[in-house]
């Protein structure tokens, strides 16, 4: 695609879209699978379907039989009181839990168009993380320059040629609405940026690798209202190209930003639907209680 060096797993040219390497089964390369045809005003295309997902931290049953749909190129918001499992859930999507011992998955998180269960034991978590990106709650840029932060994901995938890096870094910074603010100081330390800029840098860092799904875990909870607004605006623009899942404890943010909302409570999904319906006329009493501030 861009003539770079082979990636660390030897996939060849298309390192950014390496097929899900299931250890025993061979899968088609998604780059060669025709994208699903979108008929006008048809059912939204589904990017991922969660079926009966269970999760245990050791003995603690943190997620109980979750069913959820993540539509393509839409923002799905996950809301709920603290400790309800929404962060735990989003970390299942990129197998973050595999970094720590004692965790166990059950059920399925099926990624389309291949239709592979990415929490299955036979799928390499590394491959999942190469295709699904994440932005964290507290901005966590590396102790490197702005340029190197954005290029980090590309270097991990074996892209070393300066020209290719330059092009992708610039593109990612444009997508993250940060280019104008940093174009003259790409070599400056990431820590010189403000909190809101650092978070946008982290978004650019994730975008540079062209993820199929972008996961954001409370991305603006550490930021001031103006920085928050800029990032919400950014998400609204990004959603045209990327499927986005956002965890937020700010209900108004979920209302402002998302098209679909799922409400979590004590490790279960209590209600899932169009954002407009959830916030004007929720079906479940627990949803109503939570969003109108009747909790506790």
């Amino acid at each position, binding site marked *: 695609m861009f003539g770079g060096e082979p990636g660390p797993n030897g996939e060849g040219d298309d390192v950014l879209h390496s097929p899900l390497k299931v250890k025993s089964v061979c899968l088609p390369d998604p780059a060669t699978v025709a994208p699903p045809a979108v008929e006008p005003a048809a059912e939204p295309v589904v990017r991922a379907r969660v079926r009966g997902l269970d999760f245990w931290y050791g003995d603690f049953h943190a997620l109980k039989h979750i069913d959820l749909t993540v539509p393509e190129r839409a923002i799905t918001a996950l809301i709920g009181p603290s400790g309800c499992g929404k962060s735990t859930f989003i970390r299942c999507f990129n197998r973050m839990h595999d970094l720590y011992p004692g965790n166990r998955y059950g059920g399925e998180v099926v990624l389309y168009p291949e239709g592979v269960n990415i929490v299955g034991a036979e799928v390499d978590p590394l491959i999942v993380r190469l295709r699904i990106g994440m932005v964290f709650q507290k901005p966590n840029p590396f102790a*490197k320059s702005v340029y190197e932060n954005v290029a980090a994901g590309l270097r991990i995938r074996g892209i070393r040629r300066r020209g290719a890096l330059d092009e992708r870094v610039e593109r990612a910074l444009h997508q993250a609405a940060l280019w104008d603010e940093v174009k003259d100081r790409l070599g400056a330390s990431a820590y010189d940026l403000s909190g809101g800029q650092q978070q946008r840098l982290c978004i650019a860092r994730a975008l540079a690798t062209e993820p199929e799904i972008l996961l954001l875990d409370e991305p603006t909870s550490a930021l001031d209202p103006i920085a928050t607004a800029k990032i919400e605006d950014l998400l609204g623009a990004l959603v045209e190209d990327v499927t986005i899942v956002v965890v937020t404890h700010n209900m108004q943010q979920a209302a402002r930003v998302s098209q679909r909302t799922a409400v979590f409570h004590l490790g279960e999904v209590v209600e899932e639907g169009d954002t407009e319906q959830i916030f004007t006329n929720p079906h479940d009493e627990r949803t109503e209680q939570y969003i109108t501030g009747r909790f506790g």
Partner: protein
Amino acid sequence: MTVLSATPLAAIDYPALARRSRRRDLAFAVGGIIVMLVAMAMLASLVIDLAADGLPRLSWDFLTSFPSRRPARAGILSAWVGTSLVMLVTAVIAVPLGIAAAVYLEEYAPRNWLSDVIEINVTNLAGVPSIIYGLLALGLFVYGLGLGETILTAGLVLALLILPVIIVATREALRSIPQEVREAAAGLGADRWQTVRMFLIPAARPGILTGTIVGLSRAIGETAPVITIGALTFIAFLPQSPIGPEFPFLNFHWLMEPFTVLPIQMFNWISRPQVAFHANAAAAGIVLIAMTLLMNGLAIFVRYHARRALR
């Protein structure tokens, strides 16, 4: 309104309280300064004494002559060359091994009772008397592996000596890296080695360098293990030069040659009855201090730049 205690807050004499606090602060500061001055005075007197005895003896000849039975002609050429080469071998062995061991223990090893045992033992090794290392080296390296009383053996034993220091310092540096860096790297799809190489080691560099400084400073002055493995005291020749006239221009014969180091040379001279040799010993001491400072200075310089890159 209920009264909660016998001395309601309104009755507290705040000015008196503040005065007492200030007096305490002053007393502590004065005590601290006195202690510091005493320590510095002791150090200064040591250095001044050394300088007074040794400085007159320092000269180009001193630095470029071999030891001799006549104090006026004795020099430290073989000693400081020996020290430099031994330190080179020590650093080359200890630093990569120490970093690698620490990285394995911190990032790769599973957290079970075995790794706890290893951790405790590594920390304890730092406290083992250095002569024990000498005995170990004598049995293992000199006789067991047949390496003889050579620069290589000295480098190995000193590397073993400072290995725990470097391991502990590297581990602490790695531990102080917040988990969010590892998660960010993992989130981008990095495997463990990429995380270590591209993100953790660069971030841990200042800590690693500090450990290296501490370790090498200790090694340069260690006499007991080097004596034990048999460093000679009267070496009137230099090891073979590593740079040769023919391809591949670089050889390692010097590793297998006998040697001496500055502390041993100093010990040898100070043991002699002639006062003139004592002056030599003092001058050698100055050179040893200078070499240590130079080595540390280099490492501090590198660490400063590493810190600035991380900011």
